[in-house]
């Protein structure tokens, strides 16, 4: 097999991984802080894709959709935390999971009512149609843009968490929320913001994936499973883990797709099973949490 083909497939894998990483990151940040696994994460990814599509057609520009959809869906996420999830803190860890699962039912059916059950094409923004010559081959501009944007978002998130006072509160809150309360931090507000951030990241993933996948009400199911696979491999609650595992899974899928396309979806689950057998807590997970 041609080497340049493999390199091009590697780039495709990284583009796929970029969306996976951003989606899984939302899931893992919320878990790290709140101890809640959001089963509506896939549905909110799907809502993000629809919101991006709708806002883009409303404003006539993809860029407004890309900017506004994560913000609006993130705000909706905060509403979910404030009205529903908040009531379940202190109860069994299964309860928020069951609640968000029921919520995903409502969200998917709600989108079916508003936009119909059929898939809708998500047009690539005109500035990003076409290919770029990478020296070894031609690569779609849009995918290159996705990789760059996700890299920037990751950098901003990392700087925010590691270099700002807000980030310090967030990291400390993940360690010990009770001490933070004693120190006079309103941890409820921090949790609200983090839940909103997590949902916003899912929505961003949805908008970015829009032009690469078809947009339909069921798209969230596979995304949820993918995000779970990535967070389980990386270690739940670990940001570095989400990035590394996302890249692993994305590249793995695209490489297998090159040789055995029918195995592409299956291989990520096999990868997860293999990691679990060796390290049940995931690559970067803390032992006590697994």
């Amino acid at each position, binding site marked *: 097999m041609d080497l340049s083909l493999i390199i091009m497939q590697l780039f495709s894998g990284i583009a796929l991984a970029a969306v996976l990483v951003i989606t899984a990151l939302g899931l893992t940040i919320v878990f790290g802080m709140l101890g809640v696994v959001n089963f509506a994460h896939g549905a909110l990814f799907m809502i993000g894709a629809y919101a991006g599509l709708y806002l883009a057609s409303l404003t006539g520009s993809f860029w407004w959709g890309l900017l506004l959809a994560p913000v609006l869906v993130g705000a909706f996420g905060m509403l979910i935390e404030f009205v529903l999830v908040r009531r379940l803190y202190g109860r069994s860890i299964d309860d928020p999971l069951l609640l968000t*699962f029921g919520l995903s*039912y409502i969200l998917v059916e709600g989108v079916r009512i508003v936009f119909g059950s059929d898939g809708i094409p998500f047009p690539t923004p005109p500035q990003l149609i076409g290919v770029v010559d990478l020296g070894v081959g031609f690569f779609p501009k849009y995918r290159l843009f996705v990789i760059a944007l996700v890299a920037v978002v990751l950098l901003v998130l990392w700087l925010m968490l590691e270099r700002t006072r807000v980030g310090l509160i967030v990291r400390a809150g993940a360690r010990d929320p009770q001490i933070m309360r004693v120190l006079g931090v309103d941890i409820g507000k921090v949790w609200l913001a983090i839940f909103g951030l997590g949902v916003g990241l899912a929505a961003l993933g949805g908008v970015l994936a829009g032009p690469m996948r078809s947009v339909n009400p069921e798209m969230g*199911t596979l995304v949820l499973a993918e995000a779970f696979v990535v*967070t389980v491999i990386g270690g739940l609650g670990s940001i570095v883990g989400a990035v590394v595992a996302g890249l692993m899974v994305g590249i793995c899928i695209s490489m297998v797709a090159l040789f055995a396309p029918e195995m592409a979806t299956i291989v990520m689950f096999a990868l997860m099973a293999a990691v679990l057998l060796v390290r049940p807590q995931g690559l970067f997970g803390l032992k006590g949490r697994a």
Partner: protein
Amino acid sequence: MAVESTGEASSLSQSRRLFAVLSDHRVLVSLVALALLPWLLPSKALAVNVLIYGVVVMGYNLLFGYTGLLSFGHAAFFGTGAYLTGIAIGRWGLPWFAAVPLAIAAGTALAVLIGAISTRTRGIYFSMVTLALAQLVYYVALQASSFTGGENGLRGFTVDRIDLLGLQINFLDPVNKYYVLMAFAALALWVQSRILNSPFGAVIEAIRENEQRARACGYDVERCKLIVFMLSGAISAIGGCMSALHLSIVPLDSLHYQTSGMIVMMVLLGGARSFFGPFIGAATFLILEDVVSLWTPHWQIVVGAIFVVFVLFLPKGIWGTLLDVLPFARERR
């Protein structure tokens, strides 16, 4: 006045005694209720579905309700039971009485495999891993279309007559079909009741209540979890066999995450941790679906909302809440 109050007290203790007797004969009570079901519900098809999903959810309840392990992948065992029944009858030409044990064995084997991986993890990981592994089974079935029929589902294995001890039962008649399938349900109910009454049944509840203490008591927690996972998968696979015999097709969706989710919803609606809860939950869910879909195709939004309300306010489900409320039922499960 005094006479009246003693009368009330004695009627309360009487109903408490009656309730205790009924609880002690829970398999028999379930079977009587199930035998009456086709005549109480608006359609025989609905009754058969309650029967089938009741068995699947009952198996699931062993894991979720009694052991406290929230699996989101039970469609894998239900679907495997169904597929193997269909494949054994349609492709290998086996009679139904050979196909069914084979299918249950296959579902059990898969449960051992998935259980061995997923019970290595704890807490929330368990839910995520069972979901992911069940989706793996779904995609394998989707790709192996020469074997499973792929997206179109498995077809071509109609069982129209059941030969039993020289008796020929017309299996196309809905009433006959219901009572034949009820024999499977009776088997599942008996197995479930035996498991719960055994010392092992006490151990799994101990694991749910306090895993560390159970371990400190000397129980091999991982092994117990794996065994209960296997038993749970086996009972759910019985439901899968029933579904295949009933529908004469196996839709690919029977392996899908949606089916796993539906099982979770049913157990929570009816009441996890209780013997009667699964059948009550399956009946509630399916009747809701039946009624609501009469006036809107978007019944899922209504069912989803009801489920959310249950999680928030009635986490013990219908039966669990009734047990708390009814005076003669307190402290009984």
